[in-house]
C-alpha cells in the first residue's frame, strides 16, 4: 500500500492545483498546491519559477495554506526539496498570513515515499513565526532543526523509514502550542532507526504541554511503543492516540487495554494492524472510540509489514 491520491482538503480548506495565469479567487480560504506535473517537467519547467509567478498574483498576501507537490526531477529521483524550501523562505514578505505548509505532497506513482528527496527545512520555522500546521512527506535527507516556535500546533512527518535524527530533533524542539504530533517511523528496510527509547521523552517528559493527538504511525516497533505508552504520563493528556499503519499485535493491544489511563482517550486508531479478532473485541469494548479496521494477518512476526514503506 502507499499513498495514491492527493489531499482534497488541507488545513480545513479545499485544495486547488494552482496553474500559471489562474487568478487567486478566494486566497484566504483555499489551499494552493504548486507542483511540476509530468508534462511541465518534460517541458523543463522549474518549481521555483512557477512559485515566483504565484507570488506575483494579486491577493497572494492573503494566502494561508500552501502545498508543495512534485518539484522538477522529483519523479526521476533527481533533485530535492531544497530549492522550493529556499524560495518559500525568501517569500516570507509576500506571504505574511501563511499558516499551513506541506512540503512534498507527492504520490506513489510520482515517487514512492522512500524516494522523495527532502532537505533541511528548518529555516521555514524561523521564516514563518505564525505557522500553525506543518506537514512533510519523505524522510530522506530530511532535517527539521529543533525549532523553537510559539504557534505551531500540528507537526506531521510522513516517512517510510525515518532516521532517528529527525525524531531527536523533534524531541529537542520547543513547541509549547503543539497539539498534534504525528511521526511515521516506517521500516528498517527503508532507513528507520528509531527505537522505543528514542520516543520515551515524548511519552514521559511532558515535552509538549498542549499535545492532544499523538501519532507514532507506520511503525515496526508499534508493540514496544504501545507497551511504553500504556504506563506513560502522556496518556493523561492525550485525546487521540494513533498507532495506525504499523505492525501492532496482541502484545501492544493488551498492554493498552490494561493501561490505567486508557479511558481518558477520546479515540484510539490502530487501523492496519495484526491484532487477533478476540483482542480487537476487547479493544472495541473500551470506553473509547476505536478504529481497528484493516486487520492484516501474518504467519509469524517476520511476515508483518507496515502500510507505507517503499
Amino acid at each position, binding site marked *: 500500500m502507499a499513498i495514491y491520491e492527493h489531499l482534497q482538503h488541507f488545513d480545513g480548506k479545499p485544495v486547488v492545483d494552482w496553474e500559471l495565469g489562474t487568478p487567486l479567487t478566494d486566497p484566504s480560504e483555499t489551499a494552493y498546491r504548486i507542483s511540476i506535473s509530468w508534462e511541465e517537467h518534460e517541458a523543463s519547467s522549474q518549481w521555483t519559477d512557477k512559485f515566483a509567478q504565484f507570488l506575483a498574483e494579486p491577493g497572494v498576501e492573503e494566502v494561508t495554506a500552501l502545498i508543495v507537490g512534485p518539484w522538477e526531477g522529483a*519523479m526521476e529521483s533527481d533533485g530535492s526539496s531544497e530549492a522550493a524550501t529556499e524560495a518559500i523562505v525568501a517569500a516570507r514578505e509576500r506571504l505574511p498570513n501563511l499558516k499551513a505548509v506541506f512540503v512534498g505532497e507527492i504520490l506513489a506513482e510520482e515517487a514512492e515515499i522512500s524516494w522523495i528527496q527532502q532537505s533541511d527545512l528548518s529555516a521555514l520555522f524561523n521564516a514563518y513565526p505564525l505557522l500553525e500546521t506543518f506537514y512533510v512527506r519523505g524522510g530522506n535527507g530530511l532535517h527539521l532543526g529543533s525549532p523553537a516556535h510559539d504557534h505551531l500546533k500540528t507537526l506531521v512527518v510522513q516517512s517510510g523509514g525515518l532516521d532517528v535524527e529527525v525524531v531527536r530533533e523533534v524531541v529537542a524542539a520547543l513547541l509549547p502550542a503543539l497539539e498534534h504530533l504525528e511521526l511515521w517511523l516506517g521500516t528498517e528496510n527503508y532507513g528507520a532507526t528509531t527505537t522505543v527509547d528514542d520516543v520515551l521523552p515524548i511519552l514521559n517528559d511532558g515535552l509538549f504541554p498542549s499535545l492532544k493527538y499523538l501519532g507514532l504511525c507506520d511503525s515496526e516497533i508499534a508493540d514496544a511503543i504501545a507497551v511504553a505508552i500504556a504506563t506513560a504520563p502522556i496518556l493523561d493528556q492525550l485525546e487521540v492516540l494513533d498507532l495506525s499503519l504499523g505492525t501492532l499485535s496482541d502484545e501492544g493491544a493488551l498492554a493498552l487495554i490494561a493501561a490505567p489511563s486508557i479511558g481518558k482517550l477520546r479515540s484510539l486508531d490502530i487501523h492496519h494492524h495484526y491484532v487477533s479478532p478476540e483482542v480487537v473485541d476487547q479493544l472495541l469494548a473500551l470506553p473509547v472510540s476505536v478504529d481497528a479496521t484493516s486487520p492484516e494477518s501474518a504467519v509469524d512476526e517476520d511476515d508483518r509489514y507496515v502500510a507505507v514503506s517503499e
Partner: protein
Amino acid sequence: MCYYVIVGNPDSNRIDFFQQTLQRLGHPPARIAAWADLLEGHARLPEIVQAGDCVRIESPGRDFDVERLLLVAGAAEAPPGERLSALEAQSLVFERGRIWFPHQWYLGLRRALRQIEGQLAECPPHRLTNGLAEIVVMFDKAQTHARLCAAGVPVPESLPDVRSYGDLTEKLRKAGWGRVFVKLSHGSSASGVVALRTDGRRAQATTTVEMARSNGELRLYNSRRLKVYEDASEIAELIDALCRHGVHVERWLPKAALNGASFDLRVVTIGGRACHTVVRQSRSPMTNLHLLNMRGDVEAVRDRMGTAAWAQAMESCERAAACFPSSLHAGVDLCITPSFRSWAVLEVNAFGDLLPRVLHDGMDTYEAEIRAFASAGD
C-alpha cells in the same frame, strides 16, 4: 450468415465465450482448428475452411502443450545460444509460471502464422478477422512501439537495444532518466515486466518475475505476488536474465489515480473504433487485470478528464489501431498522467478483447466484433 472457423485452444474460455455469443446471435457454432493439431500437422486449414467462412485467430496462450509446440517450431529459427533444440523443447515439463524462452516462442508463433497464411492461400475464398503479419508485430513490443511512433501516436519514450543491466544503467544516466519499465520484448500481459527506479546510487525493481536457482541455473517465474528487489546485484541478475530473452525499455510515466489507486485503461478497438473500455486500478506499478487488480469507473475517468480530452485520448487509441489496419480488433493499453492532461499508448494486444460482461452500446466485445465484421463484409 457467415460460418466461423476459429484457430484456437479448444478448451479455452475464449472459445467458450465466442461460441456462446454466436449461439445468442443465432449463428451456427464455429468450427475449431486447434493450435496443437495445426502445429503437429494433424489438421490442415484447407480441410476445414469452406467458401465464405470467417476465419478468426485466437490466442495460443494458456496451454502448455501449445507453448511447447511453438517452442519446437521456433527451434529451427532461433539463433544459437539461448535456445532449446526441438528435442529439448519437446521434452519440457510443465512448471507453473515458468518463463521459458519468450524469443524462441515468438519465432515459433511467427513461423506458425506463416504456415497458417500458406494454408489459407489454398483455401476457397474466405475472410480473415486478424492480419496475420500484424499479430506478429503486436507480439514484438519494440516493433509495435516504432510503428506507433511513426504514426504520431503518443507513446512513452524508449531506450533501444538494451543488452544488459550495465548497458541499461549507462543509457539511463545518459538520458537523465530515473525510472523505466523493462519488459520482455515478446511477453504478454504482465509477464516478465520490471518497474525499475534508480537515482544512480541505489535501485529498486518492482516486478512480477521471481528468480529461482536450481543446480546453478537461474530460472524465471511469473508470480502473482509482486516482488521488490533492492539489492543491486540481484537486480542486475534479473535484468541480465531478461535481456537474454530480449527486452523493450520504456520510460515509466506516472499514472493518474482515482479512489485511492492508480489506473490505466484497456480500450478495445473494433473496426478501428474505440469501444469497450476497462479502468484497471492498482496499488502497484502493474495494472494488468489478471494480477487480481480491480476495475474502476470509466465514467469517473471521463468526467475527470473532460469530454474533449477523453475524445482525444480515444482518438489516440484509434490511431494506434489504425497502425494495424487488417486487424478487426486490438486491445490498446492507455496510460493517463496524474494531471489527466496527457496520455500515452503502452501496448497494443493482438488478443486483448477477452473482456467478459463489459458492454459497449449494449454489446460485449465478441458480439460487437461479429456484427462489425458482418457489416464490413456487406
